[in-house]
């Protein structure tokens, strides 16, 4: 099983080295061989310098694409290099590499196509539950996903997700770049891919700036809901034609 961690990084000079070191340390202790690729999304700080000096495996995007475009680059990389599992993993220290095994297990056992690491499924597991606004947003999105696809996803904006080979191939070819996490979840669900959630713990950000600005939360919510409604409609029509 070749496992790849996709680490999108935008202005993460403070965190990225720690994140990569924690993966290497995890590999040493557990005698595993989890590979990673950092996608430097046109950072304006010294992220690229840190990546080069420490010889971390990375792809340097020549222009800033946003999180969706960066993550898709990771999936393309995984697809071209024949990885069996690709895991999205934040470069800012929010995600814990110790959960990688847990999040991969359902895929290795062949039960599902995608596993989403969620903060909300098991309250004891995760100390960091994130802010009220963000939780409210997640609840609204998850409500709409439940109506449109009939499946409960408690943490649709989670950036900690594992995908199997089929999903990697699909994402490499086509990935929503505007609101990547919720939209891609809906697209997978309407195309009958199997998704489950696994409770994980997430830490508070150590440094850097979150990609979601809270002043824009309402605007974001409206657009996400619209996007997932459109996704579910157009894909259903396509299925009927077949």
């Amino acid at each position, binding site marked *: 099983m070749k496992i790849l961690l996709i680490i999108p990084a935008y202005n993460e000079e403070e965190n990225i080295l720690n994140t990569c070191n924690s993966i290497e340390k995890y590999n040493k202790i557990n005698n595993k061989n989890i590979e990673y690729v950092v996608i430097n999304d046109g950072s304006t700080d010294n992220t690229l310098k840190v990546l080069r000096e420490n010889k971390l495996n*990375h*792809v*340097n995007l*020549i*222009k800033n*694409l946003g999180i969706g*475009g960066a993550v*898709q*680059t990771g999936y393309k990389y995984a697809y*071209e290099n024949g990885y069996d599992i690709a895991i999205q993993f934040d470069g800012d220290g929010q995600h814990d590499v110790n959960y990688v095994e847990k999040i991969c297990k359902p895929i290795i056992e062949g039960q599902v196509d995608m596993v989403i690491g969620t903060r909300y499924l098991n309250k004891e597991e995760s100390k960091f539950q994130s802010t009220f606004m963000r939780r409210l947003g997640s609840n609204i999105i998850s409500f709409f996903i439940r109506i449109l696809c009939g499946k409960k996803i408690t943490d649709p904006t989670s950036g900690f997700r594992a995908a199997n080979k089929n999903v990697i191939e699909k994402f490499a070819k086509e990935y929503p770049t505007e609101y990547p996490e919720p939209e891609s979840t809906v697209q997978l669900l309407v195309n009958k891919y199997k998704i489950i959630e696994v409770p994980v713990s997430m830490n508070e950000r150590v440094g850097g700036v979150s990609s979601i600005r809270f002043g824009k939360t309402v605007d974001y919510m409206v657009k996400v809901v619209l996007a997932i409604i459109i996704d579910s409609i157009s894909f259903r029509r396509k299925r009927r034609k077949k």
Partner: protein
Amino acid sequence: MQNSLKIALVVILLIYLFIILKSVKKKNMRINYLIFWSITGIILIIALLVPNFVDNVSKFLGFELPINMIFSFAIFIALYLIFDLTKLITKEQNNNITLIQEISMLKKRIDELERKNKNN
């Protein structure tokens, strides 16, 4: 309309058509858009030169005032054009994303191969 004004407008429209042709020649505009813009120019010249053209057409189509017809046509055409351009921009954005991704990955690949060569 006074003749002097008419002549002035026709001259402006001819200059406009000339500019369109020139920009296509200089590869600043695609033939696709040349057709659209030159047709609007030609229609305007016809409307200017044929007596009572605007009045008759607007009466025929049932507009109360000729100016209403002109405004509605102008707005419809402008909306269509903006819609078309929005579509085009989105398409180009998507192409751009793909290009940036592929180029960045190729650069990585080249770097790796160069390093391998150096080591050998």
